[in-house]
């Protein structure tokens, strides 16, 4: 990217806006801020940003509502900000097209890491899809359906592969239980979170060095899963 990426922050707390402006500007981002939902929507339309950071609790509009209204016309990556215990809101926002979330309070490394992942994802989405995903000693070839761990090829069942492929092609993003179930099992089984648990355990056993301390197939508490690929 030749010019500085443009980030729009929508949050009603002035202290958060101030901190975000300072930190992101220091990291060479161009920052626009909005303290209300409607204002944010207007700004996003007037000067389309490369990334939106959106607080879920806004004084005028529900953050989830803002999220789905942006998704009506734009695929710009959205990172939602929320507090602990608001898992329902996070899931709702993720299901309506948000790409990632951050729980307040958050550290700056975490914020920057999420911003980088989201921006990379958006450039990939506009360009060609990555065909081979690397994660540590794992290699997932999405075109030939071959999964390798080190030199060995890993044998996966049809559903296991479908699940892994869905996670890997969305590497870095949080995928909600429901979203994964819809994509892999279909609408009829979208409530059977237990299927997902069983298959995730199987995948971890086959792919992780220590299934109890997964390095790639990460659990997002109360939300879903995230596949962590090499940058």
């Amino acid at each position, binding site marked *: 990217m030749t010019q500085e990426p443009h980030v729009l922050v929508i949050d009603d707390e002035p202290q958060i806006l101030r901190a975000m402006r300072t930190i992101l500007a220091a990291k060479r981002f161009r920052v626009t801020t909005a303290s209300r939902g409607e204002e944010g929507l207007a700004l996003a339309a007037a000067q389309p940003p490369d990334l939106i950071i959106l607080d879920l609790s806004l004084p005028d509009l529900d953050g989830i509502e803002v999220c789905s209204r942006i998704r009506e016309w734009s695929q710009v990556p959205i990172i939602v900000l929320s507090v602990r215990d608001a898992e329902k809101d996070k899931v709702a926002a993720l299901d309506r097209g948000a790409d990632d979330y951050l729980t307040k309070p958050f*550290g700056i490394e975490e914020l920057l890491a999420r911003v980088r992942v989201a921006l990379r994802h958006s450039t990939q989405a506009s360009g060609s899809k990555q065909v081979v995903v690397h994660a540590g000693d794992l290699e997932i070839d999405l075109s030939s359906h071959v999964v390798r761990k080190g030199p060995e090829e890993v044998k996966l069942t049809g559903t296991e592969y479908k699940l892994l492929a869905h996670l890997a092609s969305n590497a870095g993003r949080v995928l909600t239980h429901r979203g994964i179930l819809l994509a892999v099992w279909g609408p009829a089984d979208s409530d*059977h979170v237990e299927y997902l648990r069983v298959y995730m355990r199987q995948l971890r056993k086959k792919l992780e060095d220590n299934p109890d301390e997964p390095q790639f197939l990460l659990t997002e508490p109360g939300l879903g899963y995230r596949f962590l690929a090499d940058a």
Partner: protein
Amino acid sequence: MQRRLVRRIGRYVGSIAAVGLTTGVLFSLRHWLNTSTVALLYLLPVGLSAALWGLGPGLGAALVAFFGFNYLFLPPYFTLSVMQPDNLIALLVFLVVAVVISQLLGRIQENLVRARAREHEAIHASEMIKALTGLSNPQGIAAMLADRVLKTFLADHVEVSLQIDAGEDSERVVLPLAIALPREHPTKVLAVQGMNRLLGEIRLWRSAGSFFPEEDRLLGIFASEAALALERSLLAQAENRARVLEQSDTLKSALLSSVSHELRTPLATIMASVSSLRTGEVDWHEEARQELLSAIEEETDHLNQLVGNLLDMSRIEAGILRPQRSWNLLSEVIQSVLRRMRKHTSHHRILVEVPEDLPLVPLDFIQIEQVFTNLLDNSIKYSPPGTSVRIRASILDDKQLIVEVSNEGPPVPAEYLARMFGKFSRLPGVESVTGTGLGLSICKGIIEAHGGRIWAENQPSGLAFRFTLPLDLEGLSAAQPVQT
């Protein structure tokens, strides 16, 4: 009351019959008896009547005997006139003796009746008192009073109304149940008078006869006993309320002092570190800078955890902590907790022993994560660095899972084992360890909301926290996916 009247008339009839019978016997034997013997023998039915039936019937018997004696046994026979002066004397003496005997015996009899009536009254009153002592609620007192009045006074209907608080609706009991009260005025209305105000009233309907004074008195005793019981119960309630208020007050001040202390400590560290870094006077070494920065970071984490705990506690208190249970792998929850607490647990060995074939458990991921976080936090705080903390899980029976988090810390005095799960409960003698005393009570709130139990046990190696979780979600166990 008609029965009483019948009984009374019966007594007179009895006494007259006794005299009549005596007269008959004496008349048939008149040729063998002299006048004075007849007079003596006539005293028998008089005395008997007075002794059995009281003064009135005794006097009645004396009068009838007097005329019978005169008419049948004193010449001229079959007249009421008397010929000889000594016979007149005998007749008068007879009358006096008969009357005196009647009076004496009758009075004794009356005293006896009165004594019996008093005894009766005392028994009823004491039964009433006994029945009322166990009662502490106004509804119970009203019901008991109505029941006693109905049975003791053989009433047709009883209505008792007691007003618990001035200006409030009164507690009303009507007996017998499910029968409408008659339209006419009650036979008896009595106020239940308390110390300072009218507490209510008793209304009684009885078709049979009017009220006797002793009944009036007994009803009065009932009313005043009920008033006493009611006031006692109201006092007890007020005392209870005062105690609850006092307790919640103590709790609130404990919360305030504990929380303000706990909140200020990290804030003080943060403030000191930030202002140190800001000041231009000292040129901080890189190492010192890093030290101050990590202090800020750690204390901020601590504050965040504290606020989370307070929020959880207030949710539990308000009864709005409802777990969103869904099927989960326990190992995944533990894994997520350990990942997040990695920095925190670095001075201890954390050993996880969760069988691979453990079934899926219905639980709220975030809340159970919180339980593990608090139990681990506790285990780490109270056991020396370098020791192990063990997490174990197994199937207890086909309905429950049991989880154990144990450490190698010192044992906890038996009396604190249960108390540990109370709010703001801190072990004595460990003031150096920071905490609000909320962590374990939050665990208890969450586990109980999940339908499980949590407790602590001393073990030879250290302290163990154990909790159970039900394995079924609304009566169902986890569905198994078709392997494809």
